[in-house]
């Protein structure tokens, strides 16, 4: 009798295990992917939000299919500290590392040549010296900034048809600056306007530069592609209003933060587009074959509240140029 009970128990146990395994098989035999995210700047969190939203829409929902391991770099950290953080991330063996800028990408490329890297939004190849070198596994989304410098100037002239004095701010440390200045001057020549190019080395420099301007000294300002300038411009918003200086930004997020206008690909859209790339990498597509993808959508965003603080009149026709509006139009 004991033997028979044991056999019966064994059979029921096997049946239970089989049922459990069968149901788990039917649920789906999915892997939980680990995605490392390196963010050098808090302002770029929209890229991450876009990435997560994009992956969610692709069926890679957080918790069920993917887990994120974010690494935040901040200005107070030394390069060694940043490298240590990156090394910690790599030791967790992520399936892919997503970076939100050239600096983060560069750090990962230095630390590992095997972990696939997908970057969200770089302005130019010049920012990524290792992308083209042998053995890298890097790909990503271009932010298109180097291509829309002329378009930004064009739209500035459409919004401020009477503007004559244009100030171009360039980051002296940015690797793209030289090329960007060429682009800007070429566009200015086409548009028949003249530019005053000034280079700054840091946000403090920019602040000093702007502080030194007298109100109305320049009609409009165009910051050239630079991660430093992107953020520094937002910080200088009160100063810009004070100096009544129109700025054509690079991202709709800047407008959302209070900048007058911007033409470019939003961080969120870049993140969404990068999500497709991440999904393909997780599916096993070698990153090198994906290389750098052109952004899908570019749009003009304007902030009515900020614009109303300038001594300019924006017509309905000019308003119709924009695809995103923020703030309240008083005039």
């Amino acid at each position, binding site marked *: 009798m004991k033997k*028979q009970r044991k056999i019966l128990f064994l*059979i029921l146990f096997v049946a239970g295990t089989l049922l459990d395994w069968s149901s788990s098989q*039917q649920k789906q035999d999915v892997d939980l992917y680990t995605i490392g995210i390196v963010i050098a700047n808090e302002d770029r969190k929209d890229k991450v939000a876009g990435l997560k939203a994009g992956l969610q*829409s*692709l*069926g890679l929902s957080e918790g069920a299919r993917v887990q994120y391991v974010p690494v935040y770099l901040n200005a107070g950290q030394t390069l060694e500290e940043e490298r240590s953080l990156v090394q910690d991330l790599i030791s967790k063996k992520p399936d892919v590392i997503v970076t939100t800028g050239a600096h983060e990408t560069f750090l990962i490329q230095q630390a590992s040549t095997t972990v696939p890297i997908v970057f969200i939004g770089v302005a130019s190849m010049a920012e990524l010296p290792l992308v083209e070198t042998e053995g890298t596994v890097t790909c990503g989304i271009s932010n298109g900034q180097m*291509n829309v410098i002329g378009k930004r100037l064009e739209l500035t002239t459409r919004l401020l048809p009477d503007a004559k004095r244009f100030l171009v701010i360039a980051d002296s440390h940015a690797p793209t600056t030289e090329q960007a200045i060429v682009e800007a001057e070429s566009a200015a020549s086409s548009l028949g306007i003249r530019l005053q190019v000034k280079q700054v080395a840091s946000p403090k420099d920019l602040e000093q530069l702007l502080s030194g301007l007298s109100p109305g000294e320049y009609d409009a300002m165009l910051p050239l592609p630079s991660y430093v300038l992107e953020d520094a411009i937002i910080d200088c918003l009160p100063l810009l209003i004070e100096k009544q200086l129109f700025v054509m930004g690079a991202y709709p997020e800047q407008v959302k933060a209070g900048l007058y206008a911007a033409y470019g690909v939003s961080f969120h859209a870049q993140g969404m587009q990068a999500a*497709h790339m991440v999904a393909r990498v997780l599916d096993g597509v070698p990153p090198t074959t994906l290389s750098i993808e052109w952004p*899908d959508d570019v749009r003009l965003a304007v902030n009515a509240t900020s614009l109303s603080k300038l001594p300019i009149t924006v017509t309905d026709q000019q308003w119709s140029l924009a695809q995103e509006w923020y703030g309240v139009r008083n005039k």
Partner: protein
Amino acid sequence: MRRSRLPRINRLKTKMLLFGLCMSIIPFLILGYINLHTSKEKVREEVDRANQIYVENTLAQLDMLFLHTSQSMQVVQQRFLNERPSDDDAYFLLNTLLKTSAYMEEVALFHQDGKPQYLLNRWKLHRQDTPKERDNQFLSTIQSGKPYIGSIVRSAEGKLLVTVAIPHVSANGVKGGMYAKLNVKQLLEQVTLRARYENEAYLFVTDGKSDRFADPFMLGKPSDGSLTYYEQAVPLSWTLPDRTEKPVIRTYQASNGDVMVNYAMRSSVTHWVIMLEQSSQTAFAAFSKLEQSLLFTTLFIALIVLGISIVFSVSFSRLMEKIESAVQKIAGGDLSVRIPVTTSDEIGRLAASCNAMAQSLEMKTNQLLEEKKRLDLVVSGMGMGLILVDESFRIRWINQTASAWFQDASNLLGKDCHQTIGQQFSSCNGCMLRTRQMVNEKQTDLISSRVDQDGRVRSYRHQVFPLHPEKESSAFLEVIEDITEKRELEAAIAQADKLAAIGLLASGIAHEINNPLGILSVYGQDLRDRLVDEDIRDLQDTGELTQYLDTMDKQINRCKEITTRLLHFSGKSPVTVERVDIHQVLSDILILLSHEIRVKQVTVNQSLLASAPYLLATPGQLQQIVLNLLTNALYATTERGNIEIATDSPSNDRLRLWIRDDGCGIPAADLPHVLEPFYTTKPPGKGTGLGLSVCYGIVTNLGGEIEIESTPNKGTTVTVILPSAKGE
């Protein structure tokens, strides 16, 4: 008896398990297979239909988008023609078009020679980089007044672009037109957003100008229906007809072994081709899951059924096993075993029946054992040895009497009869042949002798009875009777009878001897007297002396002959048989009886016709038979009566002797008893009543027969038939 274990497969438990499994799984599998087979065809039809509809819808949507784009461009161009806008207004007008068509990268109005008049690019400054459209077909198509849809080309940034253009046709002919560069990816996103695809497949788009498909787009995997490039191998070249009313289906095997199914359709408006490619594995993924599910369910059910079957079969077969075990024990001789009856169903009743059967068997067996003991007692009390031998003459059973004759009787069982106990018997040489001969010739008796433990020779009578006479080969029951005492008694009786006969013959024999002695005396006296008067030489010369001596010698020989016959008869018969002439025996006995014959003046007629009057016996036995029979005949015969003695040979191996008298005969009441010992009708002193009884004993011992026919006052005939000695 050792219980033999059944092979597992033959066990009731296993059979019940197998039955349970088969009855639960086989119908399930058959139904499942039929359903799957039917479903597979249905699923294939449904998949084909759904994919065809998808391709049709996608193509319709694409056509619609081209049409919409074309119409939007028509409207804008018409406004340009109607309103003749300034450069600024033209900018805003074109910008509106770009804004409302997210898939539009660039839009331009161009002159007749293709040079842009107004151009607006979504990414670039409109005055920069404005090369005229270089496609020859573009200008020729526009100049012919027809709308133009170009080939899909890849831009420097890696984007797939297609140029769509409409002509500006005036009364004076074509004056230029308007074109737009569309981003194919975004165009198809618009299309697929409207025609959603639920399953995973690849969408290939070609501009219809070549058979090569553009970069594939994967459908279905992104759940929002958005498009994405995927690294999918370009399908085999496929030339579609110029017009396809419905999507065409093609199946081929990809290089990785997957079976791929293509659904393609060419637009009648744009001539673009939309092709959906899906691997057969993906299309039937749900079906595979169903198959897998069926397999798991079957396995699960099988295990559950196995469990239930084990429980039921164990509970059911436990009692069966107890019954089987009990029956095995009963078969092995243990009749005390009883099965505990725990259920009242058929199995319980079977167990109860087994118990009843065992009880009945035990009772009957006990009765049989009692009977056997009783029979053994009787068999042993018979004083005969009984031995049961099988057809191979091996001893199977031996009774106590026979066991007592041999020292180690227990070891005799199973051994060859003739090689064990047969060694001690004189007649057991060639036992097998002799036994079969006895059975075949229906000879039941065989006399043998053996020397017992005391060195005494004992005589035995062997009788053999086949247990199955109807069979050629049969076991035998051998009955051995110790007849030593009986033989000795018979010999003593025969001797007594012989002495009694001598007593009765004594006076006659004395008379018979007295006569020659008287003659001897007279001749002696006469010779003595003549020798006194005459010279002996004269008597010798005349021959008278010789005559006297011859007569005296003759009389002496006569006396000697009588005494020799008497001595011969009265002596104990030697045991050894010899060839005896019955005619000589008759002659000898008649000499002994000659006085009585003469006294009664009986006429003895002899008719001795037996051609071979020899038989195997001891002479004394034969003399005793003849003497007894002739004595009885003489006694019965009156004076001057007749006695007839005759012999003949009724067959080659038989000898017949008649002794017939015409005396008083035997009363009918006495006739059945005349062969019994001590039965006599003679007065005391005239007979012992043993004569005929001894005769009967001797004749039967010799293998012969004796018959007595008698009619009172007319006479008696005694016929003795004996086996004759063959050959010399």
